């Protein structure tokens, strides 16, 4: 049981992830789904960064007199992931605009009826 105290950061992130997942699945509006996807992505980034933190460390910029740095490899991964995420968001939004022009609506159940 005492083990679980050190795991609280993962549980917070899992809660945020599940909330984002719920927004993506449960809401029919396409723009809300994209916002939920954004929330989900940000929570995954927080998961990786909490894994990289070392207690008592500082930012990984080398300076005199500092011995312990936080791990820079998750930072590099997440930097790439953030920019790829915004690129995906841009293409997704362009698709939503075109769907709206083709069908006149962006609610999922109305789209199913029209298909």
């Amino acid at each position, binding site marked *: 049981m005492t*083990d679980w105290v050190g795991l*609280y*950061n*993962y*549980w917070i992130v899992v*809660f*945020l992830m*599940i909330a984002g*997942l*719920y*927004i993506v*699945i*449960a*809401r*029919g*509006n396409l*723009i*809300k789904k994209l*916002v939920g996807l954004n929330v989900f992505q*940000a*929570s995954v*980034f*927080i998961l990786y*960064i909490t*894994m*990289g*933190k*070392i*207690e008592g460390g500082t*930012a*990984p*910029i*080398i300076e005199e007199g500092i011995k*312990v*740095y936080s*791990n*820079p*490899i*998750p*930072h*590099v991964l*997440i*930097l*790439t992931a953030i*920019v*790829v995420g*915004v*690129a995906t*968001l*841009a*293409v997704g939004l*362009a*698709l*939503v*605009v*075109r769907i*709206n022009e083709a069908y006149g*609506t*962006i*609610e999922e159940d109305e789209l199913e009826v029209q298909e």
Partner: protein
Amino acid sequence: MAGTIYMIVRLHGLFAVVMLGGIYSLFAASMFVVLDAVDVAFTEAAVGAGISTVLMLGALALVKSEEKVGSSHVFVPLLVSLIAGAALIYGTLDMPHYGDPAAPIHQHVAPTYLSDSLEKTLVPNVVTSVLASYRGYDTLGETTVILTAGVGVMLLLGGGRRRRRKTGKGDE
């Protein structure tokens, strides 16, 4: 942050939902600063709270800006989300503790990068040197992904109706 998500779920006005998404990104960026990830915080604030929000507002100006009332079925998605959450929590029971310096991810390559980066590349910022030099090939792929996204948006939105010019040309 939980309050932000709750409001995103409940609100129907999409403008407010997009703004709340931006606020959530800003919260995430401040969490990154607390967790010593300054480069990531910079990028998340600029990209997530800046460009993302602007693009969503731009798209929102081209579609209807209200969500239809009563358009969601709550039970099955909630069940699926809770089951996924339980599975994830079960998976985290084996993970190393928060801030533990003896965790496996700090053992293999990271100490080498941290100790050799300054003398091999003369660049104090280890994240930049890893991104551009040690893992430069991945950054090339990422830049290509950005290029592809730009081309994709140009294809999707560029060939259609142009904006009416001031010279009075009609649309189409």
